């Protein structure tokens, strides 16, 4: 199995993002997904910056994939997506059917992210016919569904599972970060820059429940499937995805790398999470459940 680093879901200052990817170049990940997938107003890193980063990482030996936005509404967003699809050198991750349509029409191979709903093998076959090379299991599905899908999966398509990170649960036209600050979306003042791992929402009993990240709503708890790597290998999973977080991403990647090599202790990662862990979806339960309380 390989390790991938998903697209950074948050809005980080330019220098932080540059520092982050310089560190990634030396980490034991095989695949790196690059690009803004959440909000088109986040422009500290532009197309050329992403491309420059892509070249740097490719020279460091990584397979680089350019990710596209998950919610495409405005024509300007379609335009950016078209430009990424036509980049000519890197594979593209479609996070909406619009990108699938464009890539397929251009007869380009592509991958799909977790928001392209692939709940059964029949869907996978249609996408494979359109040029799909790798897909990410929808985050709310677990081992039983995956096992069923892979029984009838088409040849030549790799499977990736979201194995670490705050889970992307929903997206909206409304910016919840701006709303938290009583700001209109059109004058959001880029407050998501202040929340490098999203803004945690707690229930009125103080339990961390969700995290808001602009128009995206995530789980407050961090999905952690490090103890399931052997089970995933047996099912036929090809790639495990680690979703970047503001701190400790390097240590998390190292821990997964050791786990894949059958070395080291998979416990103790809870200390590296923003607020706590979960793995319920993998076990076909409520996503927030956790089987390995520290």
């Amino acid at each position, binding site marked *: 199995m390989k390790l991938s680093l998903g697209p950074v879901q948050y809005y980080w200052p330019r220098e932080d993002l540059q520092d982050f990817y310089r560190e990634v170049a030396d980490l034991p990940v095989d695949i790196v997904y690059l690009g803004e997938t959440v909000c088109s107003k986040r422009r500290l890193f532009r197309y050329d910056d992403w491309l420059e980063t892509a070249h740097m990482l490719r020279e460091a030996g990584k397979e680089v994939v350019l990710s596209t936005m998950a919610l*495409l509404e405005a024509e300007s967003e379609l335009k950016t997506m078209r430009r990424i699809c036509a980049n000519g050198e890197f594979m593209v991750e479609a996070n909406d*059917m*619009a990108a699938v349509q464009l890539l397929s029409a251009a007869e380009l191979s592509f991958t799909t992210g977790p928001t392209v709903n692939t709940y059964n093998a029949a869907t996978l076959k249609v996408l494979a016919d359109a040029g799909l090379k790798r897909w990410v299991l929808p985050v709310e599905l677990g081992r039983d569904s995956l096992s069923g899908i892979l029984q009838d999966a088409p040849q030549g398509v790799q499977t990736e599972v979201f194995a670490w990170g705050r889970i992307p649960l929903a997206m909206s036209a409304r910016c919840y970060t701006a709303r938290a600050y009583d700001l209109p979306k059109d004058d959001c003042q880029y407050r998501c820059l202040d929340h490098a791992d999203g803004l945690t929402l707690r229930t009125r009993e103080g339990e961390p429940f969700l995290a808001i990240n602009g128009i995206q709503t995530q789980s407050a708890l961090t999905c952690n499937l490090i103890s399931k790597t052997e089970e995933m290998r047996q099912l036929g999973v090809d790639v495990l995805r680690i979703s970047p977080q503001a701190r400790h991403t390097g240590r998390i990647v190292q821990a997964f790398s050791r786990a894949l090599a059958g070395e080291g202790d998979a416990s103790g990662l809870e200390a590296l999470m923003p607020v706590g862990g979960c793995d319920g979806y993998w076990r076909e339960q409520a996503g927030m459940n956790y089987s390995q309380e520290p």
Partner: protein
Amino acid sequence: MQLVCPAGNLPSLKAAIDEGADVVYLGFKDDTNARNFAGLNFNDRTLDQGLDYVRSKGREVYVALNTYPRPQGWQRWQAAVDRAADMAADALIAADIGVLDYAASRYPDLPLHLSVQGSATNYEALKFYQERFGIRRAVLPRVLSMPQVKHVAEHAPVEIEVFGFGSLCVMVEGRCLLSSYAAGQSPNTHGCCSPAGEVRYQETATGMETRLGGVLVDKVGRGETAGYPTVCKGRYDALDKTYYALEEPTSLNTLDLLPELLAAGVSAIKIEGRQRSPAYVRQVARVWRQAIDSCLRDPQHFRPRDEWMQQLGAVSEGQQTTLGAYHRTWQ
């Protein structure tokens, strides 16, 4: 412009048709549709009766098959497509690519609509479904502004249907997992948001707590009304305040936008609420029938009547309505 009304059961179906719905949409009694709640939806007998009623009045029936089958349930969805084709549904409303593929290849004459659960918010995505499966219409998620709806309708290769009234999903439909995160079942997988078996109302010394999957979604004081706990309409803590972090309990009402929707070339207005009562369906269908007729007669001078707004307000969640994402300030 068609008026498409919800039919959660036979009385609602009749109420909608009696009040002038052009189309009713309905689902079967299982998880193949996104309103999979106890006591709702149609079995063979009620379906036959409903079909007879609708056809005797010269109207149409759409079948909602708008959830995402996992491998364990695949055959149930196939059977549901077969059944919809068998009853000669005027359209099948589906979201899943596998289901659309099956329906399009097996029943080329069965008209297909892309469900709102298909999450298509732009015309490039619609091209995919049109070219692959020959869909004739798509229902747009409730996240687009009015200018964006207009832009999609202008460039779309298919007819466009939008939500006009009802409970407001603030998230892109088909991509919202809030319910399964807390309670293990989502609209995509089980056809329900906030499964009833995971909902708890608890009376406490200070008021009523509402929970989903054990999670405290909201707490109201004595004298306040406790709503059904959906995650997106709960009150949470952040930045040292307790507030409706995602959305207040409120309903969508786009009556004000009717002339603009008509001018944009929108083909149909959908009313949400298969889980609501026949009285709700009757009230809402009546108002919207009058409104659409009035708008078609004279779009220039169309103004929603005060009584319409009051009648719709009375059946709205939280007794309040919003234009939602159609209006930029909401976003």
